[in-house]
């Protein structure tokens, strides 16, 4: 709790900046007027129709990806696990490409159901392969990771083939896959994604202590009265809800699920409830900061939030790896 307060303050600052700063320069007073329902009609439209929903979407997406990262790292007992690992991202990617090429969908809102179904299908496929391949039919972490890599490669190849066959699809898809909040307008997308993300966050919080025990290995967690398979299925459900929701909000953002949990772990240690809580808050904050930075860097044009995140995330992740391994043995 003590650690959550500064985190929430940082998030608040990020949210305020995200509402204040944009390609159209508005003074803080104008924004405040617009928020309270008065002032210039155009400013009202910009703030209420674009900036606010965009901020909410970034907040939901960032929190969801960071928490999904914690859950995946806990289940695979691998600090480098991220939402891209278990076939979730690959599944939603292939579904979105199918949406573009086969069903002629062209808007982010139209991708939504496809992204979701794809994420869930990818996750289920990896679980089934993982269960079939592990000795005790319990989808052990090592098998899950291998199944995730294999299924992701396969789905990636399928995506590639579909895109090669249809170059118009490539440009639509490219925008989506980088991850961007720019195309959001109004609350349609957020309204669809929010219930999934919230359900995922609640499930993750209820799942926190199971994650603590899962980290000790299957034998020990069985000894403590947990069912490894049941716990893992709950985890996969949680991740699907979170990643599906996040992908709907902002496309597939790299690094949030990887960098945020690993950085937070340095502060909270390995107990999952504080780790989940602070990761959610800082994941949202990082995504909003990255989005605001993207709006400022090439003003009045914009860099997609996914590009900014990769630019920040890469070096930060290298620093984290060095720092973790330099600890005196």
């Amino acid at each position, binding site marked *: 709790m003590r650690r959550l307060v500064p985190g929430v303050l940082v998030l608040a600052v990020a949210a305020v900046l995200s509402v204040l700063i944009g390609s159209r320069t508005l003074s803080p007073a104008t924004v405040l007027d617009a928020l309270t329902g008065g002032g210039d009609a155009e400013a009202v439209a910009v703030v209420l129709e674009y900036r606010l929903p965009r901020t909410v979407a970034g907040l939901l997406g960032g929190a969801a990806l960071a928490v999904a990262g914690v859950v995946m790292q806990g289940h695979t*007992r691998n*600090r480098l696990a991220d939402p891209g690992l278990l076939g979730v991202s690959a599944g939603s990617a292939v579904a979105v490409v199918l949406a573009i090429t086969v069903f002629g969908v062209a808007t982010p809102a139209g991708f939504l159901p496809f992204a979701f179904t794809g994420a869930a299908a990818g996750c289920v496929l990896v679980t089934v392969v993982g269960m079939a391949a592990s000795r005790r039919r319990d989808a052990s972490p090592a098998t899950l990771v291998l199944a995730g890599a294999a299924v992701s490669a396969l789905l990636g190849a399928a995506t590639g083939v579909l895109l090669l066959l249809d170059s118009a699809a490539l440009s639509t898809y490219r925008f989506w896959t980088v991850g961007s909040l720019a195309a959001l307008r109004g609350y349609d997308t957020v309204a669809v994604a929010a219930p999934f993300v919230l359900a995922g966050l609640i499930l993750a919080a*209820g799942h926190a*202590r*199971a994650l*603590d*025990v899962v*980290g*000790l*290995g299957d*034998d*020990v967690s*069985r*000894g*403590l*009265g*947990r*069912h490894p398979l049941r716990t893992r299925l709950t985890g996969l459900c949680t991740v699907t809800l979170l990643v599906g929701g996040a992908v709907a909000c902002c496309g597939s953002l790299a690094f949030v699920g990887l960098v945020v949990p690993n950085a937070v*772990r340095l502060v909270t*240690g*390995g*107990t999952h409830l504080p780790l989940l809580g602070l990761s959610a808050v800082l994941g949202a904050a990082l995504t909003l900061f990255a989005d605001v930075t993207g709006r400022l860097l090439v003003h009045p044009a914009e860099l997609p939030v996914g590009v900014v995140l990769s630019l920040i995330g890469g070096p930060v992740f290298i620093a984290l790896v060095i720092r973790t391994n330099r600890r005196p*043995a």
Partner: protein
Amino acid sequence: MTVEENTVLRTEDLRVAFGPIVAVDGVSTTVEKNTFTVLIGPNGCGKSTLLRTAGRLQDPDHGVVLLDGHPIGDLPARQVARRLGLLPQSPQAPDGLTVIDLVSRGRDPHRRWYEQWTDHDEQAVDEALRVTGLTDLAHRPVDRLSGGQRQRAWIAMALAQRTPLLLLDEPTTYLDVVHQLEILELLAGLVRSGRATVLAVLHDLNMAARYADRLIAVRDGRIVATGTPAEVITPPVLARVFDLEAAVVNDPENGRPVVLPRRRAPQ
């Protein structure tokens, strides 16, 4: 008191096979309340599988394990975890996990997900740290401890679970002789004071003979001999179980048998 009331754990005609390999082949045995029972046998004899099956880490292909008279598979997992604590062979803690966090996880079966940490939990963890001599190392990461300290941390986790029955798979492996003594003294102390019943797999025959109330000697998935150390640690039994030709003398201090290995017995 009847015999049945004294039996904490009973296996009836247990059989476990991994493909064509039969690891446990029709084992019926009991563990009596407040005893230190030790499984001995050569590598690959099935003693570990027997322990894992008794602790429901492994489902038997045939037969049943009874915990306090109830088939263990029919009991809810959490209820079993409140009665039976289990330490598998060489468990791994996540990087950076502190001793106190590890030991606290032993309280998991006693708390529903909505239940807060209570004074009772705190007490159980403090005591587990104290009896294992880890109080001063409570905030040290487990991966920075020595082998002996690490093993004690895991035992502390099992102790914090506060179960009347403890199943331990080679709790003294990788430990030097002094650390072995420390751990076995600790376990024997728990049994003597009436706080726990212990079933453990041990490799060192002299340690087993010194601390066990009862030995179960296993070979090829079957029980070859059971009884007090004096009854089991004899040259004929050692020859049958380990193919070992050995002399057995008595420890002048406590009269327990001591094995002096000579050579592999001729087949």
